[in-house]
């Protein structure tokens, strides 16, 4: 019989005496009064202790769980040895935004889910360690600028500055190309700045990543709506050798139930944009936001949790999550649900909104809901919620935030005839290299996959950058000076 406490590589899992190190968190009574980050980060002592839990597997399973294949044992080993800056450099070989991913990756479904230690104990806290190394590098001024190759002479446009666009830009500039990012909004970062709240991802982190790209030579043109100000085809005609489209899936969906246009009904995107991007939580900023007493947030994903926890911090007395399936089906990260619960969110699970009621001035006054029960599994494999007859009830709320998802933005496909979309409106692009149906145009991230994750968007950006590099060199070989562009080291200066 195989001993379950010994793994395939012969590590004795019983030796795991050190428990998983919890990251210190801001007390929940305190944190709902501010927008500061909830988990406060490891101290070097905690980080080294946690790093010592990694078994340094020869065939690390964790690595197969990471969409970008970070060399996890290697970066953890450097932490265990106290070489934090070295660890951060190791991370950056595969992931250009480790401080972001360490915070927002659904680790429990990726690297940590398959970590061997998780078979017997709780997994190594890969995400927390990743965050630690990246934060160390940033806060200690240890960020190294890689040596860049000679300018290649090629020029690439990146449309959209979310994780897909940023990672593609970083890779392309490191290959010696001139890169210009065009961003529709007045700030770069995509969902990282307008969607994910400050208390989960401090904007200073995103800003420092963007500063880093600028130092590498990436140009960022804000307030530039491609398709309106210039089209993709015009970019190609005006000296760009290739275009990478990374415009995300930002179009908010509504439910189509009566009363959705009453005053006091927000999409999660609007609510979060007002608070995050426009900083409505700070009275010094001009953009208004409604401060209501009882808010219902419809949906069960990360976006719903973010909107709900933001609403608590805006001083809302009662915040309800209204979700039509049960807790097990909630797509939100476990940590976010737990944090939300500690902070006082109230859950109406197996509850489906059917109508928003308003007063004569057009303001929300209640949300009518139906109770649901779980029936047979549907196409997604989750049990389909079906309404319980005669179970209607009114939820007494004065504001409703709809967080049931987003879809692809149509502007680029509408204005770029060569770029084809699938029936859901997502740009059709090769999974491996991002090639669209039009030559010279590549796409990646949420605009291709539909709403997904930061790390997948980054991975797509990186793959596309590789393909774009090959494409431009093949297209205009004369420019391609021998050896230039390809070799780059990340040696510290």
């Amino acid at each position, binding site marked *: 019989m195989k001993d379950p406490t010994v793994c395939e590589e012969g590590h004795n899992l019983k030796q795991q005496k050190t428990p998983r190190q919890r990251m210190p968190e801001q007390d929940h009574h305190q944190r709902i009064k501010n927008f500061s980050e909830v988990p406060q980060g490891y101290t070097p002592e905690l980080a080294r202790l946690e790093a010592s839990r990694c078994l340094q597997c020869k065939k690390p399973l964790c690595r197969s769980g990471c969409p970008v294949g970070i060399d996890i044992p290697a970066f953890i080993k450097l932490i265990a040895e106290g070489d934090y800056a070295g660890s951060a450099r190791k991370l950056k070989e595969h992931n250009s935004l480790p401080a972001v991913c360490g915070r927002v990756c659904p680790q429990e479904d990726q690297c940590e889910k398959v970590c061997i230690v998780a078979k017997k104990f709780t997994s190594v806290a890969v995400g927390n360690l990743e965050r630690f190394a990246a934060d160390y590098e940033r806060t200690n001024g240890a960020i190294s600028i890689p040596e860049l190759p000679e300018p290649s002479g090629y020029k690439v446009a990146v449309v959209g500055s979310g994780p897909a666009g940023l990672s593609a830009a970083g890779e392309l500039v490191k290959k010696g190309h001139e890169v210009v990012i065009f961003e*529709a*909004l*007045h700030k770069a970062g995509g969902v990282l700045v*307008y969607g994910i709240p400050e208390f989960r991802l401090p904007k200073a982190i995103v800003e420092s990543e963007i500063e880093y790209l600028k130092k590498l030579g990436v140009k960022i043109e*804000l*307030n*530039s*709506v491609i398709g*309106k*100000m*210039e089209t993709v085809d015009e970019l190609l005609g005006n000296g760009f050798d290739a275009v990478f489209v990374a415009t995300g899936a*930002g*179009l*908010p969906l*509504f439910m189509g139930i009566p009363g*959705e*246009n009453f*005053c*006091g009904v*927000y*999409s999660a*995107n*609007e609510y979060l*944009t*007002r608070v995050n991007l*426009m*900083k409505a939580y700070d009275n*010094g*900023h*001009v*953009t*208004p936001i*409604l401060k209501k007493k009882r808010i219902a947030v419809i949906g069960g994903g990360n976006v719903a949790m973010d909107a709900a926890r933001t609403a608590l911090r805006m001083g809302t007395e009662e915040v309800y999550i209204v979700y039509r399936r049960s807790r097990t089906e909630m797509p939100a990260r476990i940590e976010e649900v737990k944090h939300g619960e500690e902070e006082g969110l109230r859950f109406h699970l197996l509850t489906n909104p059917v109508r928003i009621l308003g007063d004569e*001035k*057009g303001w929300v006054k209640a949300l009518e809901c139906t109770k649901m029960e779980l029936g047979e599994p549907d196409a997604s494999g989750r049990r389909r919620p079906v309404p319980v007859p005669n179970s209607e009830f009114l939820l007494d709320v004065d504001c409703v935030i709809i967080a049931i998802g987003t879809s692809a*933005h*149509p*502007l680029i496909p509408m204005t770029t005839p060569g770029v084809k979309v699938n029936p859901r409106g997502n740009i059709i692009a090769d999974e491996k290299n991002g090639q669209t149906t039009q030559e010279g145009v590549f796409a990646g991230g949420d605009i291709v996959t539909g709403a997904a994750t930061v790390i997948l968007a980054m991975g797509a950006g990186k793959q596309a950058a590789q393909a774009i590099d090959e494409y431009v060199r093949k297209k205009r070989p004369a420019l391609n000076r021998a050896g230039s562009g390809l070799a780059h080291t990340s040696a510290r200066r």
Partner: protein
Amino acid sequence: MFKIVAKEKLSDVIYRTVVEAPKIARKRKAGQFVVVKIDEQGERIPLTISDADPEAGTISIVFQTVGYTTKQLSTLKVGDHILDIAGPMGHPTPVKNYGTVVSIGGGLGTALGRPITEALYKAGNHVIAIISARNKSLVMFEEEMRKISHELLIATDDGSAGFKGFPTQLLQKLIDEGRKIDLVVCVGPVPLMAAVSKVTKPYGLKTIVSLNPIMVDATGMCGACRVTVGGVTRFGCVDGPEFDGHQVDYDELMKRLKTYTEREQEMNQRFASQFQEVKR
């Protein structure tokens, strides 16, 4: 950063500002707008591109000081900079030769509808322009409108200039006289657009209105600008701002425009006190 190169006070509350924005100037068409954010703390507000000079690389905006941001904008001088301007947003007006077009502007709407009227005029339409205001001293853009119309009618509430009454009465008169009208365009306050649509609807007279819902990003990402048109929710910023006047739920639009009244009043007071300090 977008540099202000000219500024003009058109009335107590209306200003015209010309800004350097070469890419927008080259691309914009009648009916489109920009989003302006004055500084780091500022709000993003939509403003119609009232004119553009592609050679000089400038666009002009005409605005009325109704609240904090438009008042703040009015304090900026030639040589000052606006932090962010994005555009051109929204669909351009579908310009072609319709035949006879009646263009109705109310108050500031006359200036905002001017580029649309101009485009229709240049496309060979017979243009009848109706401009309206409360009294003679508030009648504006008369000269500008005269240049781009074949007939110019004026309506004032008190009759101090032109016809005494509402522009809708002038429109009704044209219809009653049996004038052949192929298109009506109205840009102005919501009640005026609603009233004009009400007049033209029984005659099945195609009517275009330019809606002004509250906006945030104006790129289609937030849904703040939701309007109901033909029973369907549309996004004013990307599906509009122009819609078929007969299909619009004006009552809902008017209610939604009042969403932030409280905060707007608070900000108005803040502006007053800040402005006092600047003066001192």
